[in-house]
Every structure is written in C-alpha cells, then in structure tokens.
C-alpha cells in the first residue's frame, strides 16, 4: 500500500507539508501560551478559561489510558468516515456529481445484506451460517451493481451537463427513494448485522497499559485492517488496471477517457458500482458496531466535513480528513463535551470543517486557486 499511496501523495506533499508545519507551529504557540497563562496565574482553577483551555489537557495527562482509548475510538470512526468519503470522491472525480446518496447507499447496502440473509434463513428455510451469509453478500453486491446501472441509465444520462446543484438535488432525490424503497422492502425496524456469520471477529481484548485498561474491539481492528486493504486495493486498481487508468483519465478529460476505448456511460456504471461496494463494506463495519437502520443517515452526513477537509477530489485527503474528523470529534466530545452539556459530537465535525474552510478554503490537499479573469 505504502508504495502506491505515497506515489499518489507525492505531488500533494509539498503544500500539505507546508500546511501541516504551519498548523503545528500555530498549535505549539497556542500550547505555550496556555502553559504560560496557567503558570502566571491568569487562569485560576475553575475559571472558564481554565476549564476550556487547561483542564482537558491536564485530564489527558493524568489519565493516559483514557486518552489512548479515545484516540483509538476516534481512529476507528475516522476510518469509517474516510470510507464513506472515499465513495464520494470516487464518484465526484469520475462524473463531477456530488453524490449525496453515498451515505444512504451505505445503509441501503447493509440493509440488503442483512435483509436478504433474513429472508433466506427465516422465510426460505435455509440454514443460518456462513454459506448463506456469503450468498447474501453476493446478492448485496449484485444489488449495488444493478443500482449503479439503473442510476446511470435513469438519472445520470438524462441529466448529463446539468449544473452541480441540479445533480446534487437528483442524488438527494435518489436518497429519498432509497430510504423509502429500503424500508418498504426490508421494514423499518433496526436490524442486527450478521457479523459472526460473515466470519468477522467478535469480542474484545483488554490491554493493561499506562496504568489503566484499554478496550479494543476485535471488530474495530478488523474494520481498520479491511479499510486499509480496501484503500490499497482501490489505489492498485486505479494505478495498474486499464479501467482504473480510464477512470483517472476521465477525471482529467472526458475525451481522454474515450480514447482509452471505454464509454463514459460504462465508466459511470463502474464508478457507481465501486462506490457501492465501498458503501457495502462501510455498511458492514458500521452495522456491526451498531444496528442497521436509516438512522445511520446522520452519520453518513459526517462524510461531508471530511470532504471539506480533504477536498472533493483527493483520495489521500479523504483518508486524512476522515481521521482528523474521527479523532477530533471523539476528543472533543470526551474532553470538552461536558462543558457544553454533551452531545457536541453532532456538530463538532462541521465546526471543525468550517474553521478549516475559513482559513484554507481549498481544503487540506487542494491547490491554491488563482482566479484568472
């Protein structure tokens, strides 16, 4: 993986590095300022300033095991955010469509998986187990392919060359349709992911480190590993396969793609299908951590701030952005959330993204845009 992604990262390194260094410098300065403020007595314990600026860091220092636990959870959430964002990026790069339905595709695919497993085991009387689970998985993949094909046929083709807002609204329409359709077919009740049947590890391991205990869910480890494999696979696909190269070409110019001998329509089907598979994997992971239902929609929206951080067209951006949001959100909720009465997870990601937007509108990995008139 490293070889592949690093080559993809290389051209982006210098601005990203600059930005990172700049950011680190600013952070260091702020940290120094806080330390000085606390030591000078300007912020007595219990003051607002102390609560916001000092106390959380002191907590982190005092309970490193909790810090590690939080970071780990943030990391896992971040990986999943990154996966959803990846689906967006794929489609945006290839077709210029901001696929709002990506989040719902996550739920829809997971629901198809669980739902068809249920139908096969409960109504058709097939024996529950790995075989049927694999069968259900194949059905889900097939469904995502059919979906991709239908979307290209029914939605994208007639709307080609419309402006981005129209395309966005069409995918919002698609979102609504999928929600209604999914609930109509599989019912609206939350479902349990068939984690074990798919051969995914369950259970957890406790580590005793740093004077405390850290819980690691096996599933989370699997999620991180699978996500990494997935990303590496995609990178490989883009770099070394004919279709992959065509997809990259289409991002640059539609004509170039045609010269590779693949029609634009085929490319769209492939991209949407790929995004569908990514969604399915995401759905399995996420579904295993909680229930499968359309309540996940809100979580799917979290991919948006990730995109803002990483930029709409950058794969590495999606990954880094996902991690920043995942970790930032968990840390924020854990250490600062109580100050606001909790629940700040729902908006913190957006505010982080907003902050970035104001200071670096082109995103982490975007080039500075020079507007030529």
């Amino acid at each position: 993986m490293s070889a592949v992604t690093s080559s993809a990262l290389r051209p982006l390194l210098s601005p990203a590095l600059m930005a990172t260094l700049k950011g680190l410098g600013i952070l260091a300065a702020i940290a120094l300022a806080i330390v000085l403020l606390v030591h000078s007595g300007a912020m007595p314990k219990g003051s607002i300033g102390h609560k916001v600026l000092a106390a959380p860091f002191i907590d982190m220092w005092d309970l490193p095991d909790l810090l590690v636990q939080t970071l780990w959870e943030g990391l896992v959430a971040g990986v999943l955010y990154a996966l959803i964002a990846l689906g967006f990026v794929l489609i945006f790069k290839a077709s210029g469509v901001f696929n709002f339905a990506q989040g719902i595709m996550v739920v829809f695919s997971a629901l198809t998986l669980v739902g068809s497993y249920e139908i096969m085991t409960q109504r058709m009387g097939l024996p529950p187990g790995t075989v049927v689970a694999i069968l259900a998985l194949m059905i889900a993949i097939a469904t995502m392919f059919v979906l991709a094909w239908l979307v290209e046929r029914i939605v994208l083709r007639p709307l080609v060359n419309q402006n981005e807002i129209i395309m966005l609204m069409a995918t919002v329409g698609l979102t609504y349709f999928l929600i209604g359709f999914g609930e109509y077919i599989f019912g609206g009740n939350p479902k349990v992911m068939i984690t074990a049947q798919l051969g995914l590890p369950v259970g957890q391991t406790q580590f005793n480190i740093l004077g405390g205990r850290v819980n690691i869910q096996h599933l989370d480890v699997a999620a991180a590993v699978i996500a990494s494999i997935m990303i590496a696979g995609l990178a490989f696909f883009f770099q070394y396969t004919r279709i992959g190269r065509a997809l990259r070409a289409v991002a640059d110019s539609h004509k170039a793609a045609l010269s590779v001998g693949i029609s634009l329509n085929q490319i769209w089907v492939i991209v949407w299908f790929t995004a569908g598979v990514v969604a399915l994997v995401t759905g399995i992971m996420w579904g295993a951590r909680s229930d499968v239902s359309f309540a996940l929609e809100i979580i799917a929206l979290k991919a948006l701030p990730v995109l803002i951080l990483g930029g709409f067209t950058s794969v590495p951006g999606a990954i880094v952005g996902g991690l920043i949001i995942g970790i930032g959100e968990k840390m924020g909720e854990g250490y600062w959330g109580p100050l606001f009465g909790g629940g700040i997870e729902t908006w913190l990601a957006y505010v982080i993204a907003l902050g970035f937007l104001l200071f670096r509108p082109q995103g982490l990995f975007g080039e500075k845009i020079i507007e030529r008139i």
Partner: protein
Amino acid sequence: MFYRETGQFKTNYTDDMAIFPIRQDRIGIAIILAIALILPFVVSEFVLKTILLPFLALSVAVIGLNILTGYTGLISLGSAGFMGVGAYACYKLTTIFPEVNIIIWIFASGFFAAAVGVFFGLPSLRIKGLYLAVATLAAQFFLQWAFVRIPWLFNYNPSGAIEVPLRTLFGMPITGPTAELEVKYLICLGFVIGMTWLASNLVHGRIGRSWMAVRDMDIAAELMGIKLLNAKLLAFAVSSFFCGVSGALFVFLYLGGAEAGTEFAIRLSFLILFAVIIGGTGSMIGSFFGTAFIVALPTILKFGAPAIGIAITGATAEKIVLMIIGALTIYLLIVEPHGLARLWQIMKQKLRVWPFPY
C-alpha cells in the same frame, strides 16, 4: 389564449415597472387571493390542518431560501435551523413579554433568525457552491443541538418542547389549543401575503438586482461597485428572516405546541431546498409551487390512496411517499431542471402567444 394584451400600454415608469404589468395577471392574482380568503370556510378541517396551514407556514421559508439560493446563488442546508431560531425566539419573547401581541413577536423573531443567519453566512465570502452547503450544515447541526441542549430556550419545560401559550388578537384566541383553525389560517395567510409582497418588492429593486448580479457573474457584479460581502450577508439576513418568521408560524400556528426540537431537523432543511429547486430557483411563484409539492404530495398520497380504494397502511404509505417524492424529484429535474415555475412560465408564454407556438 386568455391573455389579450393588445391595448395594454404604459405611459409611466411606475406602471411599466409594476410587478404584474399585465392586466390578466392582476386579475388572476385577485381571484387567487379571493379564493384563498374563502378557502378555510369551505374545506374540511383535515385539509386545513394537514395541507393548508403547513403550506402557508412553509412557503415563507421557501421564499426565504429562494432569496438566498435562487436569487443570490448561495446554497443553504440550514433553513430548518433558522426556522428553529425563529420559533424559539418567538417563544422566549412571548413568554418574557406576554403583553405584546404575538403577531408582533412572530414578525420580530425573524430578526433573531436574521442575526444568526448573518453569522453563519460569514464564510460565504470565501467559499462557494457545495462547500458553502456543507458550511451551512454546521449551522443546522449546531442549532439543532442547541434547541435540545439549552433548556433555557424551552423555558425548562419537562417535555423539552415549546408549549405554545394562548394568545389573542382583539380578544380572539389565535394561538394555543383553543384557537380556531380558520383564524390561524387567516393569520398565516396575512403573513404569507405580506411577506411575499415584501420579498417581491425587494427582488425587483436595486437589492434584488445586486443579488442576481452576484449570482450570475460575481466578478462583474463587483465591478459595478457591488460589495460582495454586503450583498451576500444581506441575502443571508433576509433569507433567515423569512425562515425565522416561517418557523414561528410553523410552531405557533401550525404545530401548536408539538415537540419543536425535532421538527427543525436536517430533513426539513432538505425539504425546503427541494421545494426551491422543484418550484424553480429565482421565482416567487415557484416557491409556492414547490411548497405545494412537498406539502400536498405526501398528504395526498397518504390519504388519497385509501380514498380511491388502494388499501395501504399508514406506515407503508409513508415509505411509498418517500419513494415517490424521490422519484418525482428526479423525474422533474430531468424534465425541467428549472422547476415548475419554468413550466408555468412556458405555459404562460404559450397562452400569451396563442395560437402561435412561440
């Protein structure tokens, strides 16, 4: 066909710049207003409650978002949040100053929404398009969170919701459980007419032109001396003002005391944006078409289907409604990406040049 414009000429600029320069349009508007006035007394309570009231209340928000999105070209996914600001502001105001008439507070609550809107509109100077849409999501989620987590906003009610108090106008209850539906409707209608009038005044003047200039070609707009930040923030302010008033109407005259915190969720923001896009961006009449579409369609599907003998349960109906809204949206976007207003315009143009095709 019914447009007989021959002989309608303008001898002064006031007439020429009128919002409805064609006599037949003015007659049409008068007829529609007359129908709107008698409507509550002829339709069933059910229609009044499930279609007409939410239609009126939401149409104000849709006009508001249309000002931002349709006229100024800025997308917002935070309209429901701004509606919430209006609703909570109105609630706080009327509980703190119960002696001031609620109608004034409904109007005034718009100012609070406007202030919040301007704050969240600040990033619009630097970011555009989809990026801005995501930024407004921040507003949406933050506000939604605030409505739930800040108990002061709902007066520490154990239900965690706004409890709409009884308020009167000329001794007649207009809000609260004892208010007549017809009265609520007429109050709502008054607001809708007034706000629509204000909005169309605005978009037909200098400010409206500045907005459209920013939308169509911001570089050239700046060259005309239009300060982009001012124009955009003003659009955010006015848009949020309308959303705020709409939110107050929504809670005080339509919901009448339901749990408001969950009403102003992201889905409502999307519905409002739907209404704008489907109705037609940059069109006042389109705002009404769009609102009618999102309000009436679900109800008609939900209750209309059983009425014609298709037996579906409420829950199933809701799912089918979602599917149909989604599918229809896509269909409409394909057929006419500029919305129902464009269809209306085409139809009107056809009628004007009738029997000619163009």
